């Protein structure tokens, strides 16, 4: 058998022997970014559909969490930077070829938008809420009058945020596991399913809960399709991608992926939701929590396994 033994004199920290340039910070950000994107997307969507009243959790309550989620994510991203004092350099240029530049600018739009959106609903949710100053009062009135425009911007920018979390990774051809264009849609779908799960978890309205239960079921189906598609694509591709798929098909990441992400995070909650829709009494917290858990695991496993996949030479 033809073999090659390689001894390298290079031992750069965080690059050798295995790349470990991105850790929990990036995975956490990808998760909260996706979750916030899902929440904001549904809020804007149901507002535009004119269902503000019946779907009040989705439109008014759930988005309150988004600014906090985004701030957690941004803090994690900032913590991950190694040249922190220069972070403002992200905002002195627009690099169309760099997904991270797209992401930085998208966050610049989505984060303030989520704060504005939540703020316009504060007086409704907390009767007696007063904006302290007159100009704040006027500003709030302006945004309330223009909520439709806000919703349109939010529906588009949150979808970009959701897709971007996947594209950030898929743009790296040096890491064959990440280098698949299905990662963008997969992360968008998983962000939407986490958002729907979150809304389901805090909603007290049975109609709303059932609707989001059905949405979750549909999105889980789509996610499973994407995952199967991803592996089909890998296995039909070049050797490096076959090896990358091997990380999840017999390699070191097999059990965590198929048990935590696919079984506990998708199959079990889907079954629980089917049972619940058929009238069984299932605490809604359970499937929602499992979906969110599966979501976190998906981001962590893809971030870590991607860095274990590489070209060999």
């Amino acid at each position, binding site marked *: 058998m033809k*073999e090659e033994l390689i001894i*390298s004199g290079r031992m750069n920290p965080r690059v050798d022997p295995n790349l470990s340039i991105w850790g929990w910070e990036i995975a956490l950000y990808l998760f909260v970014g996706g979750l916030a994107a899902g929440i904001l997307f549904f809020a804007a969507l149901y507002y535009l559909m004119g269902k503000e009243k019946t779907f009040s959790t989705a439109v008014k309550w759930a988005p309150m969490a988004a600014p906090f989620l985004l701030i957690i994510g941004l803090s994690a991203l900032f913590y991950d930077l190694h040249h922190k004092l220069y972070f403002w350099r992200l905002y*002195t240029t627009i690099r169309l070829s760099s*997904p*991270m530049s797209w992401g930085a600018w998208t966050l610049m739009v989505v984060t303030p938008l989520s704060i504005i959106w939540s703020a316009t609903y504060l007086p409704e949710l907390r009767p007696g809420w007063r904006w302290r100053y007159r100009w704040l009062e006027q500003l709030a009135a302006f945004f309330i009058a223009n909520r439709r425009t806000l919703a349109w911007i939010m529906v588009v920018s949150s979808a970009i945020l959701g897709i971007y979390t996947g594209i950030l990774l898929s*743009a790296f051809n040096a890491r064959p596991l990440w280098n698949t264009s299905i990662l963008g849609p997969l992360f968008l779908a998983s962000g939407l399913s986490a958002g729907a799960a979150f809304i389901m978890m805090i909603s007290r309205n049975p109609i709303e809960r059932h609707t989001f239960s059905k949405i979750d079921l549909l999105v889980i189906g789509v996610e499973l399709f994407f995952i199967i598609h991803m592996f089909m694509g890998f296995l039909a591709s070049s050797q490096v991608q076959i090896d990358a798929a091997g990380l999840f098909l017999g390699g070191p990441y097999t059990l965590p992926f198929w048990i935590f992400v696919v079984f506990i995070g998708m199959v079990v909650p889907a079954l629980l939701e089917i049972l619940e829709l058929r009238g069984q009494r299932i605490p809604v917290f359970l499937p929602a929590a499992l979906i969110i858990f599966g979501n976190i695991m998906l981001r962590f496993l893809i971030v870590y396994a991607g860095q274990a996949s590489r070209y060999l030479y």
Partner: protein
Amino acid sequence: MRYAMAVDTKKCVGCSDCVVACQLENNVPIGYCRDWIVESTAGTYPELELEFRSERCNHCANAPCVRCCPTGASHIVEGGVVLVDPDACIGCGACIASCPYDARYTHPDGYVDKCTFCIHRVRKGQKPACVEVCPTKCLYFGDLDDPNSEVSIMLKTRDYKTLIPEAGTDPQLYFLT
């Protein structure tokens, strides 16, 4: 102008002089390296072949690190040399993840660092430090657009390979075989 480097794997003995020269010339922090030696033994026993390669940044003509940099800190200067501007680098690590050769690292000061083809020496008409010190004279540096440069002549007269051309980066580090 297209700067490139050729490494004669038939002459390289893996002494690591290039590595030391680079570390001294460029003040590379201890524990890090911008160039390194790879020793590869390949074949089917007992038909084995030993190859030494002095490796570094490939200064790719289609550089993924430049493409994915969110601030433009990774950029291309004359001769296609890929550089990092420390004052624009935020240390996000995207370029490190994007390099199929793993030629980059995070400098302890926070920014990303890598081989510069010793552009500061080349601009003065000198050779890169690694080329200058090589005791077996196995490294060649020059302009590929100049048909009479050392590196053009070597690539015309010898067989050569590049590393993982299938990664699609159009690497400019050539290995004479």
